[in-house]
Structures are given as structure tokens and as C-alpha cells.
């Protein structure tokens, strides 16, 4: 037999759950998948893990199993988790005498695979057990489906049952038809209503067996159409029961569509409405009967249905309006069209009330249009006949009765009444009827309502007899009434009424007999008016008349008014004082007056003649009368007469008035006398007097002028002032004189006049502008000839000039002397110092010492002489700057320390002041005074000590006064000389100079310096014992913050390390300074000559910081900064930019910061200042230490740069003498490097002449803008070179020309000239001091 053998891998693939046993029934090997279920030990007995579950008969010995070849075995495997069943069979392997179990796990669900951590791949591909599990799972899913389906079906069935029950049990008949309308189902109610069973109905169309002869064909067609179109339907129709009885049904039906919208069925409900129909018909019949009755009464009957909004009209109604039936039918839907549009609202209103349930009947009158277009008035009466089931009105019925005739009469009456009422109400009076009865009192029968409007009382109030009448007028009224009553004559009365709240009102009442009434009483009809205004107008007129008369009476002229016959109509009291006579005169003539007064008639003849001539000429006539007053003095009267003409130009009256002009006449006489006096003054005055107009044209001159200048009055009047002036003065006549006097109203000064013979006269004038109303303004001038005085003054001026020149010469001499002496002296000192370093004998050393002392003394003498000269000419200025007091004093003391020690003296120093005290004042002058006194003390002391004591005298607020006391134990001063010790050129003893040297100026200088600063100095001395100098000086107390920040600068500026700085600056000198400083600090410097170059450079190279000048050609610093700040690359746009500016005007810094700059430095600047600003923006470089160390190595160990600089500066200041420049700043910057200073000077010498040339050119052309820019450019150099006398002028030139101040050109020209002069001198000095 062929043998088929498998290797282990094949066994594993085919039977991955195999178990191999040896004859001892020990497990030899497990298949790969069963091995996942359990772990076994070597030779683990089979029965320790497996138990044979079936066949139960199986014995577990090797032989037993070996013999059971075809048995199916079920094994239980005790895995660590649970028991797993295996199903399979055993096979005996004879070659190896082993048993092998071949099978696979028997699982009950797929879940168990995972539970046993098995995978599908653990089963042999041919093993279907897993598929069996899959099938089981599918079956479970199918069962779940089935359960779900059954549930769903049950739910739907229940829903359907519910619906069917409702349909079945409803009282309405229910029908379901197919889409063609054939019945497929009916409910019980349907069977009951129709009498047909379900079976009888199925398959039929409802119309075919339910409808009959009374079924409305229209409705049948409607139903048919709706069903055909698959639409809803609703209608009422007559149907027939199976037994033949008709009945009404209301049918409501709906189509039923499937999901796709296809019509599948109809469902309809049928409601039996027979009873309702019968009831409606009954009502209709009853209405018809009622209508018939109304028609019989001859009225148009109408009916309106609120639901259908239709109207019905009776034939009588149609007749009423003239329409036939067909025409009337046209209005059935819109009957309201017939109603007059003005009355339309009536029916709208009652319709609404019916609908709102507020009305059940109505009665209204309105107009309706007939067929012929005319309108008739109708009386419309109607009532609600029926309502709908929900209580709304359904139908109203009513009649229309033609009431046109009645209405017209009514309207006509109404019209008349309206007219009367309107008339009486609108009359501006009260209409009334007043009845005089045959017996009894008369009374008002009617009072129109206007009484209220006019008098503010009601007719009833008025009717109460006399109650409103003023008591004083009652009797008068009563008489009037009685008179009219008796005579029937017309009645008129005016009287006062007292109206409550209104006061007195005047009224007039006029009436006349009108008719007799049925009782025979007389009825008067009349009108009452409010005449209050008329009355008050009359009153006003009277008052006005009185007023005018009073005015006329008060006028201080005699006034008389005549008629054309010369009779008096009016006379005022001035004309005739006596009032009785005045009254008598009215209507009289002058002749009557003469007779009355017994005067000759001739007096009046003149007046009479004048009157006649006025009548004739019809215009004003004037004449003068001379009378004599009671004292016999003449009286002058001016008389006027003028006619008053009527519309035709005829004279109606003449008004005459006269004024007493005696006073005026007297004044005129006086004025004539005055004028003569003034003229005499003018003519005979020795002062030069003239008048001229505002343009300088002479109006008048007095004889004195004529005499002085040799011209006649005629030759001068009408000419210009300038014609008589010196030609140069005449040129400025307008500007310097006319404009001034016209503006200020006066002017004074001196001008040069030229006489006719050409002689020049100096005239001192004081002139005034005279402005009077009505007269052109003119100038009155007073002058005095001061020619002689001027000549004398000129001579004095020349003398003064000579003196000044001499003084100037002295000044120049001193300056030269200083320079001339100092230069060789520096040489001597230099050489002497060199000599000192050579090998010298003792005698030589002594000589040398003598040379040094003499030279030093000589320098002191020169400085003292210069100081005393400055003091004498008042040219000393004092600083007001903060400084550390203690620092300064100590420095001074230290500088003398070696001298003190050299002489074997003791120096004692006591100070009460704080070491930190900051004072504000002049530290340099303080040092000068202090040093001088200290120097003296040492000089004059041979042995002993020098004591310096400093104390506070007083302190108030920030003011402090400090006392300095310097005491020595020297030679002392004798009493006699002590008084004069502060005088210049005085020394303590005549041999002092010989013994101790000096000029004798030192103490004088000290005293002056102390006193000029508001202090005092004194001296106490005992001969041979010693001297004490005390001086006190006031200072202001400052704070440390005020100290220049430069003081905070480090000793070594190189700590910022290597940085790349861009210097944007156009002036070469300034470029040089910046480069010099920065390169010394170990930085790299690149220079841009203008803003544009700077902008270009930053995009090419990296810079740590930019120093940016403001004013530069091509592009200024501000614009350049703005451009750089807008660059996108932050490395460029964020470079710190520090402005370098010569501008130190307020607000400039704000402008720079606004432009994007970080900070600014004002030129010229010191190294420390530059450091203090730029160090804010540059981080110190820690690696720069090496450089720092290297540098400090070169510096003297104890040197204090700050201290050193200040001391040098002091020295310079002291030695500067008359130098117009001061190189302290340059030296400070250059750290004393001679090369640097030389370079600076040569740059300055090169640049300045060019600048000056340009400045002169610009100034000559009045190009002030350019001048300003140039001055700005020059400013830093001037300040840097210490040209102090030009600091202010150059600033002034810059700002004034820039601000375009209204300075005359001459002022600027003068400044420019000054700058030129000084600069030229500076150039000469520098050229001398720094020969190329």
C-alpha cells in the first residue's frame, strides 16, 4: 500500500488542532492552533488535560483508543480559561507507534472564536466548522429580521384597524371608490342612509344608483368633473333611497394618491342634510309672504344676503328707481353703487353694526340714484331676518319709501334758518327785537348770539334789564326808551356797559319801529355795536391836540398862526404872555391889538407887508427886527413866516415864528475878536509854525518860517514839506514822518531844513494831527531852530569817538600784550622744563628755579591785568551752572598740596557742608578766588599752618550763603595798609613785589569777583602773626539730577565694543569730529554726505546706529529717517537713529522723535555727551574688555579724565585772555591730541572764508532763507571753536531770518557785518596760533 506522509508543517496546515500521543498516553506534540489554547509540560499525561466526553464507553488506554479506528471522539480540553470541546478522530501511526488526534474545536457561536483568542486563520482552510458558525450567525440575523418585520406589520395592522373602525362607525356615510369612481367599500351609515348594502354597492358608481330626477344636473356634472380630474369635491345634492324617497346629502370627497403621486382611490363622506334643507325652505316661503304684504303697501322691498353679498329687489322697488327687472339684476351684487357718495357711509355704518351683532333693525334716510341720473331721498327701514348657525347675520329685509318732497321742504327751511343765523352771527353788531307792550315793561324779544362774541355776555345776561349798564347812564337810557315808546320814533343811545371780567365797554344801540305783534305791542328792530374803540380814539385825538398845543407853547420862539386874512388862529405864551389877552387875540388882527394896547398902527405895518408878500410868493419869508429891551439894550429878532397850502396850492393859513438872536449876535462879535488875537500870535511868534495836510502839502506858514527859510508864504503854501528839507531827509519823509503822525496822531524829532539860500538848518519839531468833524484832518507843526545846538553836539561826539578809539587801542594793546608775552613765556617755560631734566649744578638749578618762578609770575601778572581790564570794562560774565561744591574745593586744595609740603607747612581743612552738596553758580570764578587767596596764604607764610574753613552763613529755601575763611600764620599786614589791600596795584608792603612777586592785582580781582556775584570779602590781620581772608558768596542749591549727565559717563568709552556707525553729516568738520571720537572708542565709522546717501548705504551695509544730521543738501535727516523707518526689513527699519542738530529751539526735539528718530544730540557735543546718548541704544560688548585693558594700560594710574578735563578747561579759560576763540571743547573731544586740534583748526580755517563769502552774497541779495540755513550750518563750528562773542549773533541771524521776523534788513545786515568782523579776527588769531 502506498504510504502518504506529512511533515509537521503540513500537519499544522491541514490539522492545526492535532494531538500526538505516545504509547504511555503522554502528549508528545500539539498542533499550532491547539497550542494557542493551552500550554503543556514535557510528557504531560493526556488525561491531565483532556477527558473523553464521548464515546462514553471509551477507555483511555493507548491500546483502547488505538482499536477505535472509526469512532467520532468528543474531547473536553481544560484550558486555563474554560473547557473547549474538540471533535475529531484518533489514528494510529504504526511507524512511530503513536496515536494522533485529528479534529477541530466544536464552537457554539462565532463569539467563542474570539473568546478563545483564536482567529479564522487558526482553522484549516478545508475546515468548515467556522462556516457553520457563520451560517448560524446569518440565521440569527434572519430571525432578527423576521421579528422586526412581524413587529412592523403588527403596528401597521393596528393603525389600519383603528382607521377602519372610525370610518365604519361614523354617522356619515363613508365610501371608498377606485380611481375611476367605482365603489370598493361603504360603511354601515352609508347602508343606512341609502338602503343599499355593501355588496349591492360594490362596483357601482354612486351617481348611477343614488341620483334621480330632482338631483341638480349642474352638481352631477361638477362631481363628475372633479372625479375625472382627481380633485377634492364638496357639494349638496338630492339623492334617492332604495325605497324611492328623496333626501339631501352634503358630499365631501378627497382623492388618495400613492407615494409616486398616482391616483389610486377616492374617499368620500356623505352627510344627510335633509332636515336643514326643509327648514330653510320654510323660512324662504315665510319671507316671500311677508314681502308680498309689503309690496302691497306700495313700498320698494329689498333683501340682502350677508353671506352671498347679493341683493334682491321687488318689482315695486324697480319701479321706484325706473329700472326694469333685467337692469335691476345688474345691481344685485353691488347695490350700494346706487347710493349717493355723500351718504354711502350711512349704509356702511349700519352694515358693520349688523355684522358686529350690535343691530337687528335700522331706519335711515339717504339718497339713491334713479335710472335718469336724478337722486331721490328714501326712508330705509329694515330688519334682520335670519342668522347663520354660528350666529352671524345672514339675511336682512326692508323697504325704501320715497320721501324726496318732504325732504326738500325740510332742507329749504333749514337753509333759510342757516342764512339768518349766519347773518346775525357774522354782523359786527348785535341784532335785536325790542318789544313795547301795551301794558307792562318793554323787553328784548330776541338778541342775536353774536352778543357773546361782541360783548362777552350771553343773551340771557343781557336781557336782565339795565343790569349791565353803568349806573350813571341808566337815567339817560330810561328817558330815551320812554321817548321812543311813546312816539315810535327811532331810538339811539350811547352808553357804558360794565362787563364782568372785562370792565367798561362803550356801546351804541339804534333801532326803529318794525311791526306790531299779534298783541298790538310795538316791536323795534335794532342793532347794538361795541364803540369802545371809537370812543377811545376820540379821547386819544383830544389828548394829542393838547400835547401839540403844549409843545408849541413850550417852544422858546414866539409862534402865531394866522388865517389868510391875517387873523390870529393861535398864539403861544412866548408871543403873548398874558393868557387872557392871548385868548382875546384869537380871531383878532394886529390892528385890533394896537388899538387894544393903544399903540401906533405903524409898528405892525412891516409885519403886514411881510404877510402879504408870503401870501403872494407862497413861500417862506425871513426878516430881522431890532427892538430895544426894557434896559434900553438892543434886542435882535429873526422872524420867519411861511404859508400852509391846501391841495390846490392855495394858502389856508400862515405860520409865523420869531427867535431872539441877541446872544448869538454877541458871540459872533466875540469870535471875531478872538480870531484876530490868534492870527497875531501866529504872525508875530518867533516859533516856526505851519500847518500841512496828511500828504505833507503846506497849508499855512507863519512869518517866522518865512523869515528863517527866506521864502515868502506864497512860495511855500501848496508845496510839499519835502521841498524844503535836506534831500536825504526828504527821501524818508513819508516813512519816518507822515506815516508816523498819521498813525500816532503826533510826532517829534529833528530834520534838516534847507533855506532858500541853501543854508542847512536843524529843526526840532513837535507836530500834531488835528482831526475835527467836517474838516479834512491836517497837521499843525511847531519847530525850533536847533542848528547851533546840533553843531555843538557833533563836536562832542567827535571827541567821544576819539576817546573810544583810544580805549579800543588799549584793549587791542592788552590783547596783543597778553599774546605777545605769553607766547615767548610758554617757550621759556617749555625750555626751562627741558633744561630741568638735564644734568645741572646747584647754582644752575637755583637760576633755573628763578627763571621758572619769574616766568610763572609774569603769566600771573598778564592774567591779572587782563582780568582787571575785563572788570573795568564790565565785560565779565558769570556762569549759572550746577557743580559739586566739595569736589571743586578739594581739587583746589590738592593742587596746592605739594607747595604746602615743599614749604613744610600744615594745611588744615574744615568744612560744615555735605560732601554731596550741589550748588548752582560759577565754579570757575569760585576756584579763581579761592586759589588766589590760598596761593597768597602759602606765599606769605614761612612756617606754621594754613587753615581753610567753610561754613554756612544762612540758608533759606534753595538759597544758601557760604563763608570761606583762609587763615595763615604768615607775615601779616600792618593796619595802615590793611585798608587799601583790595585796591588795585596795592600790596601789603612796598617791598612785597620785590620779595614775593605779583602784580598787586590779585586781591582787587578777588574783591571784584566776589562783589559782582553779590558777596563780600574782608580781611583781618596782625602783623607778623598772620592774616585771615573771609569771603561770603551766595549760591542756589541744586540737586544731583541737575549735574550734567556727562559726569555719569564711564571712564572708558570703549566698553560698547566694536560697532558700525553711520554718520550722516554734510559738514566735513563735523564728520571729522564724529569719526575721531567714535574711532577712538574702537568703532567703525562710515560717512554719508547727505540723507540720500544714508538711505542708500543702510540697504547695502549693516549699521548698529545712525548719527543723522538734520539739515543736509539733497535730502534732509528727517526725510531720510522717515524713508528708513518704512523699509520692510526690520533689521534696517529698526536701526537706532540719533539726530545731530544745531537746532536747539523748543519743539524741535518733538519733531525729530515724531519723524521716527530715537534721540537727539545738540552740536557741538562732548565725548561724554555723545556716549551718554548713544549708549542707550548700543549694548555694551562684554568682549571689549581686552581693548579696555589695553587702553587703561596707557593711561596714568591715578588719572581722573573728568577731573583732568575740568582743570584743563579752567586753565584755558584763565589763559584765554582776549582770544576770540576757545578750544576747550576741541581739546576735550580730541583729548588733547595736537594732531586732532591742528586738523580741526585747519578745517575751520578752510571752511569759514567760503561760508563768509556766501553769507555776504546772500545778505546782499536779501536771500534771508539762505542766510538762515548758512547760519545754522556755521553755528556748531562757532560753538565748537568757542567763539563766544558770535554765539548769540549767529543764533539771532538764523532764527530771525528763518522766522521772517519783521526786522529791517539793516539790522540783519549789521549782524552779518559783525560776524564778518569777528570771524576775520578769529582767522587772524588762529593763523597766528596754529601756523600751517
Amino acid at each position, binding site marked *: 500500500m502506498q504510504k502518504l506522509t506529512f511533515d509537521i508543517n503540513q500537519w499544522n496546515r491541514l490539522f492545526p488542532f492535532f494531538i500526538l500521543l505516545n504509547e504511555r498516553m503522554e502528549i508528545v506534540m500539539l498542533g499550532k492552533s491547539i497550542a494557542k489554547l493551552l500550554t503543556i509540560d514535557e510528557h504531560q499525561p493526556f488525561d491531565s488535560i483532556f477527558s473523553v466526553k464521548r464515546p462514553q464507553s471509551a477507555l483511555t488506554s493507548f491500546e483502547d483508543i488505538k482499536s477505535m479506528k472509526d469512532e467520532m471522539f468528543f474531547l473536553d480540553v481544560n484550558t486555563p480559561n474554560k473547557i473547549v470541546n474538540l471533535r475529531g478522530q484518533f489514528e494510529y501511526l504504526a511507524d512511530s507507534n503513536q496515536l494522533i488526534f485529528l479534529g477541530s474545536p466544536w464552537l457554539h*457561536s*462565532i*463569539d*467563542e*472564536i*474570539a473568546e478563545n483568542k*483564536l*482567529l*479564522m*486563520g487558526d482553522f484549516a*482552510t478545508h475546515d468548515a466548522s*467556522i*462556516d457553520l458558525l*457563520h*451560517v448560524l*450567525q*446569518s*440565521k440569527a*440575523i*434572519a430571525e*432578527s*429580521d*423576521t421579528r*422586526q*418585520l412581524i413587529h*412592523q406589520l403588527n403596528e401597521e395592522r393596528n393603525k389600519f384597524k383603528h382607521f377602519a373602525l372610525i370610518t365604519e362607525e361614523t354617522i356619515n356615510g363613508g365610501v371608498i371608490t377606485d380611481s375611476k369612481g367605482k365603489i370598493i367599500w361603504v360603511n354601515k351609515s352609508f347602508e343606512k342612509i341609502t338602503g343599499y348594502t355593501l355588496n349591492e354597492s360594490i362596483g357601482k358608481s354612486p351617481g348611477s344608483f343614488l341620483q334621480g330626477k330632482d338631483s341638480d344636473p349642474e352638481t352631477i356634472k361638477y362631481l363628475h368633473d372633479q372625479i375625472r380630474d382627481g380633485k377634492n369635491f364638496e357639494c349638496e345634492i338630492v339623492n334617492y333611497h332604495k325605497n324611492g324617497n328623496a333626501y339631501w346629502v352634503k358630499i365631501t370627497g378627497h382623492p388618495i394618491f400613492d*407615494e*409616486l403621486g398616482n391616483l389610486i382611490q377616492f374617499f368620500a363622506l356623505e352627510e344627510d342634510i335633509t332636515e336643514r334643507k326643509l327648514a330653510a325652505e320654510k323660512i324662504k316661503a315665510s319671507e316671500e309672504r311677508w314681502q308680498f304684504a309689503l309690496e302691497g303697501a306700495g313700498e320698494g322691498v329689498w333683501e340682502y344676503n350677508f353671506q352671498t353679498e347679493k341683493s334682491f329687489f321687488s318689482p315695486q322697488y324697480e319701479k321706484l328707481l325706473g329700472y326694469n327687472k333685467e337692469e335691476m339684476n345688474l345691481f344685485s351684487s353691488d347695490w350700494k353703487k346706487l347710493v349717493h357718495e355723500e351718504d354711502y357711509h350711512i349704509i356702511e355704518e349700519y352694515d358693520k353694526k349688523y355684522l358686529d351683532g350690535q343691530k337687528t333693525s335700522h331706519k335711515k334716510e339717504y339718497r339713491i340714484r334713479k335710472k335718469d341720473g336724478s337722486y331721490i331721498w328714501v326712508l330705509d327701514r329694515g330688519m334682520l331676518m335670519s342668522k347663520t348657525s354660528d350666529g352671524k347675520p345672514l339675511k336682512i329685509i326692508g323697504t325704501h319709501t320715497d320721501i324726496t318732497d318732504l325732504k326738500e321742504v325740510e332742507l329749504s327751511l333749514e337753509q333759510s334758518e342757516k342764512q339768518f343765523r349766519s347773518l346775525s352771527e357774522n354782523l359786527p353788531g348785535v341784532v335785536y327785537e325790542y318789544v313795547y307792550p301795551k301794558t307792562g315793561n318793554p323787553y328784548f324779544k330776541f338778541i342775536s348770539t353774536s352778543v357773546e362774541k361782541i360783548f362777552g355776555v350771553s343773551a340771557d345776561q343781557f336781557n336782565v334789564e339795565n343790569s349791565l349798564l353803568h349806573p350813571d347812564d341808566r337815567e339817560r337810557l330810561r328817558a330815551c326808551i320812554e321817548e321812543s315808546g311813546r312816539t315810535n320814533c327811532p331810538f339811539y343811545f350811547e352808553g357804558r356797559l360794565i362787563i364782568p371780567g372785562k370792565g367798561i365797554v362803550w356801546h351804541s344801540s339804534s333801532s326803529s319801529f318794525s311791526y306790531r305783534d299779534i298783541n298790538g305791542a310795538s316791536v323795534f328792530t335794532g342793532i347794538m355795536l361795541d364803540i369802545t374803540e371809537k370812543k377811545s380814539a376820540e379821547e386819544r385825538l383830544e389828548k394829542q391836540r393838547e400835547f401839540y398845543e403844549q409843545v408849541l407853547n413850550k417852544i422858546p420862539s414866539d409862534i402865531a398862526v394866522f388865517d389868510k386874512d391875517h387873523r390870529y388862529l393861535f398864539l403861544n405864551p412866548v408871543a403873548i404872555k398874558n393868557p387872557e389877552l392871548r385868548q382875546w387875540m384869537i380871531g383878532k388882527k394886529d390892528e385890533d391889538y394896537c388899538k387894544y394896547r393903544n399903540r401906533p398902527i405903524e409898528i405892525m405895518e412891516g409885519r403886514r407887508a411881510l404877510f402879504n408878500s408870503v401870501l403872494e410868493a407862497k413861500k417862506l419869508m425871513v426878516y430881522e427886527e431890532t427892538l430895544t429891551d426894557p434896559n434900553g439894550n438892543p434886542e435882535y429878532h429873526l422872524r420867519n413866516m411861511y404859508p400852509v397850502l391846501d391841495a390846490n396850492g392855495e394858502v389856508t393859513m400862515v405860520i409865523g415864528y420869531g427867535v431872539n438872536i441877541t446872544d448869538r449876535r454877541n458871540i459872533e462879535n466875540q469870535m471875531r475878536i478872538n480870531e484876530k488875537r490868534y492870527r497875531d500870535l501866529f504872525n508875530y511868534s518867533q516859533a516856526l509854525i505851519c500847518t500841512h495836510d496828511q500828504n505833507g502839502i503846506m497849508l499855512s506858514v507863519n512869518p517866522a518860517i518865512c523869515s528863517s527859510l527866506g521864502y515868502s508864504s506864497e512860495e511855500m503854501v501848496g508845496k510839499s514839506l519835502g521841498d524844503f528839507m535836506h534831500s536825504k531827509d526828504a527821501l524818508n519823509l513819508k516813512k519816518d514822518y507822515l506815516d508816523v503822525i498819521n498813525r500816532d496822531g503826533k510826532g517829534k524829532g529833528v530834520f534838516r531844513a534847507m533855506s532858500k539860500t541853501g543854508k542847512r538848518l536843524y529843526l526840532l519839531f513837535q507836530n500834531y494831527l488835528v482831526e475835527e468833524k467836517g474838516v479834512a484832518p491836517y497837521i499843525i507843526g511847531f519847530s525850533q531852530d536847533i542848528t547851533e545846538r546840533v553843531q555843538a553836539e557833533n563836536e562832542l561826539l567827535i571827541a567821544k569817538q576819539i576817546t573810544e578809539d583810544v580805549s579800543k587801542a588799549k584793549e587791542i594793546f592788552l590783547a596783543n600784550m597778553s599774546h605777545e608775552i605769553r607766547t615767548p613765556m610758554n617757550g621759556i617755560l617749555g625750555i626751562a622744563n627741558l633744561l630741568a631734566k638735564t644734568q645741572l649744578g646747584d647754582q644752575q638749578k637755583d637760576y633755573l628755579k628763578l627763571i621758572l618762578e619769574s616766568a610763572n609770575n609774569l603769566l600771573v601778572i598778564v592774567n591779572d591785568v587782563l582780568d582787571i581790564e575785563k572788570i573795568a570794562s564790565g565785560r565779565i560774565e558769570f556762569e549759572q551752572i550746577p557743580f559739586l561744591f566739595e569736589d571743586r574745593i578739594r581739587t583746589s586744595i590738592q593742587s596746592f598740596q605739594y607747595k604746602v609740603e615743599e614749604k613744610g607747612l600744615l594745611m588744615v581743612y574744615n568744612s560744615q557742608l555735605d560732601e554731596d552738596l550741589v550748588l548752582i553758580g560759577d565754579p570757575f570764578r569760585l576756584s579763581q578766588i579761592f586759589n588766589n587767596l590760598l596761593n597768597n596764604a602759602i606765599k606769605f607764610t614761612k612756617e606754621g599752618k594754613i587753615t581753610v574753613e567753610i561754613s554756612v552763613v544762612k540758608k533759606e529755601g534753595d538759597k544758601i550763603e557760604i563763608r570761606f575763611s583762609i587763615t595763615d600764620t604768615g607775615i601779616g599786614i600792618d593796619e595802615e595798609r590793611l585798608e587799601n589791600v583790595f585796591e588795585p596795584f596795592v600790596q601789603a608792603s612796598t617791598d612785597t613785589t620785590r620779595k614775593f612777586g605779583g602784580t598787586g592785582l590779585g586781591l582787587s580781582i578777588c574783591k571784584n569777583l566776589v562783589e559782582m556775584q553779590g558777596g563780600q570779602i574782608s580781611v583781618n590781620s596782625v602783623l607778623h602773626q598772620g592774616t585771615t581772608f573771609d569771603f561770603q558768596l551766595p549760591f542756589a542749591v541744586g540737586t544731583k539730577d541737575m549735574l550734567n549727565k556727562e559726569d555719569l559717563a564711564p571712564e572708558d568709552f570703549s566698553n560698547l565694543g566694536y560697532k558700525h556707525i553711520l554718520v550722516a553729516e554734510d559738514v566735513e568738520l563735523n564728520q571729522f569730529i564724529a569719526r575721531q571720537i567714535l574711532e577712538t572708542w574702537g568703532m567703525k565709522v562710515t560717512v554719508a554726505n547727505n540723507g540720500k546717501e544714508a538711505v542708500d548705504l543702510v540697504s547695502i551695509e549693516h549699521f548698529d546706529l545712525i548719527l543723522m544730521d538734520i539739515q543736509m543738501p539733497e535730502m534732509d535727516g528727517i526725510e531720510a529717517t522717515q524713508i528708513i523707518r518704512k523699509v520692510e526689513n526690520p533689521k534696517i527699519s529698526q536701526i537706532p537713529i540719533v539726530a545731530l542738530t544745531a537746532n536747539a529751539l523748543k519743539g524741535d526735539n518733538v519733531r525729530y522723535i515724531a519723524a521716527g528718530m530715537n534721540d537727539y544730540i545738540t552740536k557741538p557735543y562732548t565725548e561724554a555727551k555723545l556716549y551718554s546718548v548713544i549708549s542707550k541704544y548700543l549694548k555694551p560688548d562684554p568682549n571689549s574688555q581686552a581693548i579696555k585693558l589695553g587702553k587703561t594700560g596707557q593711561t596714568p594710574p591715578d588719572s581722573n579724565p573728568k577731573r583732568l578735563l575740568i582743570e584743563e578747561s579752567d586753565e584755558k579759560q584763565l589763559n584765554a585772555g582776549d582770544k576770540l576763540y576757545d578750544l576747550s571743547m576741541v581739546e576735550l573731544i580730541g583729548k588733547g591730541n595736537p594732531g586732532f586740534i591742528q586738523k580741526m583748526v585747519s578745517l575751520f580755517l578752510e571752511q569759514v572764508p567760503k561760508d563768509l563769502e556766501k553769507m555776504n552774497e546772500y545778505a546782499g541779495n536779501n536771500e534771508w532763507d539762505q542766510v538762515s540755513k548758512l547760519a545754522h550750518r556755521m553755528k556748531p563750528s562757532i560753538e565748537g571753536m568757542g567763539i563766544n562773542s558770535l554765539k548769540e549773533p549767529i543764533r539771532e541771524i538764523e532764527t530771525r531770518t528763518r522766522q521772517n521776523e519783521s526786522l529791517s534788513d539793516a539790522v540783519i545786515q549789521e549782524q552779518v557785518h559783525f560776524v564778518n568782523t569777528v570771524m576775520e579776527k578769529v582767522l587772524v588769531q588762529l593763523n597766528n596760533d596754529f601756523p600751517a
Partner: protein
Amino acid sequence: MYGIVNKAIEELVTEKFGAEVWNAVKVKSGIKVDFFLSNEAYDDEVTYQLANAASSVLGVELKEVLNLFGEWWIMHTCKEKYGAMMNAGGSSLRAFILNLPRFHDRAFLMYPKLAPPEFKTVEVSEQQILLHYYSNREGLQEFVRGLLQGLSQFFNDPVTIEMVESRLNNNHHEIYKISWV
């Protein structure tokens, strides 16, 4: 296709968009089956019509519907109804995908009315498997991609799936490149 597929579409649409949308999809598809029986075989056309109708009603492209359905099939249908089977399919995404061919081979016999697709895998590297997909059904490429995405989610093992060859490009069958990042 067996009813379980159509049922899954119904569940997907109802769950994600509501019963009304499912009704609309059903009306649109013209399928008049109220209840799909899982183990009943339905014409493939039914499934296609449902997918097309869903695409139209939801306003998304068919391939998106299929993709979504593929994910749903794994994450809901298989997970809920054949969870244990899924677990038995492999202990990792990689093992499961490699087991896919055998999985479908077994299905072939179990569902005689089903014409299940056939898969073949090629292990390119530890990070990449090429899955060959053979089917006589048209237009289910995106469904397969969705299935793979669903599996990726099921095993919480993100992969990128790229269809490198397709019958749409006149190739013989589809090849999906599954890569682990």
C-alpha cells in the same frame, strides 16, 4: 445582493439624515420594497438604484455615497452584526487585510446566491500592501475604498488608501495601495 446590503443603506440614510430622507430616497429610487430581508437575495439593480437615489436626494456625488456606505458597512453593519467574525478575521488591520481573500472565499460557498468579490494581497513592505480586487460588479470602487477606510477606523490604525489601478482606466481589475505612514 443580499438584503443585508440594502438594509445597511436604509440604516445609513435613516440614521444620518432621518426617516423622511430615506422615504424620499426610496420614492426616488422607485423601489417598492418596504422591508429588506437580510438573507434574501435582491437584484443588484435595487442596490444601485438606492445608491443613485441617495446621491440625487442628498445632492452629493455617487462615489461619495458609496464611500460613506463602505465605512458604514464596516463600522455599523459588520461591527454590530458580525462583530465576533470581525475579531476572528485578524488581530490587526494588516492581518485582517491579509485574511480578506480567505474570508471571501468562505463567503462564496455560504451565500450561493451571492457573487462575492475576490481579493488578493501582495505584501510590498511592512508599510505597504497592495490589495487586488476582482469583481464582476461595476462601479463599486469607491465602496471598496470606504470599506478599507472603515477597517482602518475599526482597528484604529490610520492608513492612506490609493487606488492605483482600475477598470475605469481600462485595467483588468482594481488595485488599492494601502500604506502605513
